[in-house]
């Protein structure tokens, strides 16, 4: 048994650091998908450019590598361009058993994904691989994320062969963090990747991080641990009535310096300067710590501590007048601007910040990057476990809040550029576990440029300018948000009727209809969001 483990470890180490050749490539266990040649064959068998042009109507960018294009991605990755002959040759070399049926699973219920599955089935069949696909429903986590007891030999606790999913990242480390020891449900541990995950998470030096990203991308690319399929774009749509007045376009899923307070809108037929948008709340406003900037009404209503630029690089303070990071990176402090108030006129205080940080730490649905930062605050573990009343690494002096971390976190500034504090006084007696269930979320009191005026759940929400906004009162007179979200036919109906002047969608199917409106302008925006296939290399039970 020990010998088997040693051989597996040795092979894994070999695979992780060398390019695959016929001489070294072989399965590392009885699962043929642990053979890199089989995984390469699958990559070669898929004609992603054609899929992007047909199924996604050009609204998808075929992916090479996990990371989006940019300075952190190497340019010499193998694109695995469509080559069915090469795929067949690799399968023959690997001794692929053509009677084996692959169980492919996915969890997106939209039509484009179902079409993609059918296309993948056809492409794989063309090279001699049979696959069936099924939609996962219900408790997805227990079906895709459970890790094996033995991260080296398995068996895997998930039952599928291939999973179609995505990685949407706020911080680039998110693409790779699950390669840390014991966190991958489907890939045997790769020692070098463990080291590299530690490396990119343990430094704030972008050059060191870049080295790590380059090496990880090469390892994954050469061994085909994952098959990136395409980069999902985000589409902002704006009617001709709306003028952003040189404000930048950025990743709308998060908070950035979109300058909404300076936007203007032409009067409608009744002479009113109303901006219509979509995705208004249907049942409640979501806590803005969960999906950060994904809900436009939350971005209108809440400010963040720091501010990020369109590609989410922190650029300065928003609610904070100033901030400081110690030389060792273990202390972060920020000072609030004077005179800030919540929308109900009560002052925003350092106590609100302390309460918000402590509550976000205990709130189970806080965004993983933000959560990861907060968990590194000194005393966080005991505080979350309920063993300590106070968070020892968190303190305030006047308007200055200081956080002391036990370990370096490369994303402190990024996290606080997305962190919207809440008014503590509104949550007396609320258990952080059940924060989302608080009555506050029926009509929140925020700190941002617009304040929530009327809420008729699932019908409309109105927002009006916050006259005391610290960057100056917004110019748009009123915002009306209807509840239609993306991937909802009512979005296009509302847009056609002139009831959607601004919004964004990631659904490729929405784009042609929006582009077809002669008064609508659609802007594609590159975001870190990669759709991919995960291949289960462990021996595993079948579904």
């Amino acid at each position, binding site marked *: 048994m020990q010998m088997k483990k040693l051989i597996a470890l040795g092979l894994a180490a070999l695979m992780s650091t060398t390019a695959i050749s016929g001489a070294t490539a072989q399965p590392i266990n009885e699962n043929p998908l642990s053979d890199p040649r089989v995984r390469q064959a699958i990559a070669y068998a898929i004609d992603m450019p054609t899929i992007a042009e047909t199924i996604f109507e050009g609204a998808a960018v075929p992916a090479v590598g996990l990371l989006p294009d940019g300075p952190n991605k190497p340019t010499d990755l193998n694109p695995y361009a469509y080559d069915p002959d090469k795929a067949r040759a690799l399968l023959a070399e690997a001794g692929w058993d053509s009677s084996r049926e692959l169980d492919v699973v996915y*969890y997106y219920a939209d039509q484009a994904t179902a079409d993609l599955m059918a296309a993948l089935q056809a492409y794989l069949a063309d090279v001699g691989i049979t696959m069936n696909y099924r939609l*996962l*429903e*219900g*408790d*997805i*986590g227990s079906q*895709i*994320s459970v890790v094996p007891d033995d991260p080296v030999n398995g068996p895997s606790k998930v039952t599928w062969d291939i999973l179609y*999913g*995505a*990685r*949407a990242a706020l911080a680039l480390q*998110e693409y790779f*963090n*699950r390669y840390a020891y014991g*966190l991958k449900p489907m890939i045997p541990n790769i020692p070098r990747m463990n080291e590299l995950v530690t490396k990119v998470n343990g430094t704030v030096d972008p050059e060191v991080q870049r080295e790590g990203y380059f090496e990880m991308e090469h390892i994954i690319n050469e061994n085909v641990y994952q098959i990136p399929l395409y980069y999902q774009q985000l589409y902002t749509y704006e009617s001709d009535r709306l003028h952003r007045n040189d404000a930048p376009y950025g990743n709308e899923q998060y908070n950035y310096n979109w300058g909404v307070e300076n936007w203007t809108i032409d009067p409608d037929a009744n002479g009113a300067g109303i901006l219509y948008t979509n995705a208004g709340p*249907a*049942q*409640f406003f979501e806590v803005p710590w969960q*999906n950060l900037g994904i809900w436009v009404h939350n971005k209108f209503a809440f400010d963040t501590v720091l501010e990020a630029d369109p590609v989410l690089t922190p650029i300065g303070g928003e609610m904070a007048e100033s901030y400081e990071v110690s030389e060792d990176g273990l202390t972060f402090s920020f000072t609030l601007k004077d005179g800030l108030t919540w929308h109900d006129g009560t002052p925003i205080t350092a106590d609100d910040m302390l309460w918000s940080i402590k509550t976000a730490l*205990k709130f*189970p*649905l806080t*965004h*993983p990057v933000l*959560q990861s930062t907060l968990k590194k605050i000194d005393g966080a573990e005991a505080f*979350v476990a309920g063993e300590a009343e106070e968070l020892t690494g968190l303190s305030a002096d006047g308007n200055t809040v200081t956080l002391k971390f036990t370990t370096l976190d490369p994303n402190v500034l990024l996290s606080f550029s997305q962190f919207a504090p809440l008014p503590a006084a509104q949550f007396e007696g609320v*258990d952080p*576990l*059940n924060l*989302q*269930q*608080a*009555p506050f*979320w*029926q009509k929140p009191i925020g700190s941002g440029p617009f304040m929530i*005026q*009327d809420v*008729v*759940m*699932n*019908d*409309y929400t*109105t927002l009006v300018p916050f006259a005391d906004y610290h960057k100056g009162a917004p110019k748009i007179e*009123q915002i*009306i948000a*209807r*509840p*239609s979200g993306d991937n909802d036919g*009512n979005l296009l*109906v*509302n847009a*056609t*009727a002139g*009831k959607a002047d601004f919004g964004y969608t990631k659904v490729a199917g929405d784009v042609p209809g929006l582009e077809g409106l002669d008064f609508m302008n659609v802007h594609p925006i590159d975001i870190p969001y990669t759709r991919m296939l995960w291949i289960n290399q462990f021996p595993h039970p079948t579904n």
Partner: protein
Amino acid sequence: MLTYIIRRVLILIPMAFVICFLVYCGLELTPGDAVSHMINPDALGSMDPAQIEALRQSLGLGQPFYVRFWSWFSNLIQGNFGFSTNGGVPIANIIATRLPATLELASVALIFSTVIGCLLGILSALSRGSKADGALTVVGMLGVSIPEFFFGLVAILVFALNLGWFPVGGRSMPSYVTLWDRLPHLVLPSMVLSIMLTAGVMRYARSSMLDALSRDFIKTARSKGLPEWRVNLLHGFRVALTPVVVLIGFRLPVLIGGSVIIEQVFQWPGIGNEFISAVRSQDYPVVMTIALLSVMAVLVASLIVDVLTALIDPRVRLGE
């Protein structure tokens, strides 16, 4: 009759309990729970399983299903509908805000379809074999066979987007104060909902009327020299009304359950829309409460139909 009604009302309670239990069992068989709905699958791998489990426990989702069912039911009989698992909103508030919207939409559709359906059905029967009868029969068949979402989309395209006569959806706008302000929003969804209901009532009224007109008592009435309108309406239609009343009675639950499709197409913030959201997000307390209301509506409608049938048709004796 009073004894019969009391007996039926008493039977309603155990029936509602059993049906609710079966609905709860059905929900239990669906995979996942409210917490699994709260988390984007893309982010699942990065979440803290211990904290997620703590959330699940804090919402009472970790208990055996019969414990959860009994907790829900015992609260219910004390008048406590409970809270939405996802948003923490008291379910009584959800019902209070959503039910009026559905009642408004369904009442208009029900009244309209009943009156128009009966009138057209009688006309069709009285002019049996004529071009008008043929045309109404075709219209009725189309109304019954074409899905309501299709009518809805066509209505939006023509009357809202092309002609601009009505809004595309929603129930109200910030500046609205009275029902009159909201009326333009009500027209399209209520008329589309009416189409299918009208077609059904018309088909039923026609065949019942034809059946009634072929009976001996109609010939007797005519032989007595009664005017034709009196024979048709007072003698014929009264008898023909019985199956129509049954049909309409069994449509009363629409008032509670709403028309899910119409509410979705027209962005109508009613109980049907809420039900769909609650089922999707596995918000059991909300699903169960709406299901209970629907069950009660069906059972009460059944009782009303029985009583009305007895009142209309002297041959029917309740409780015998």
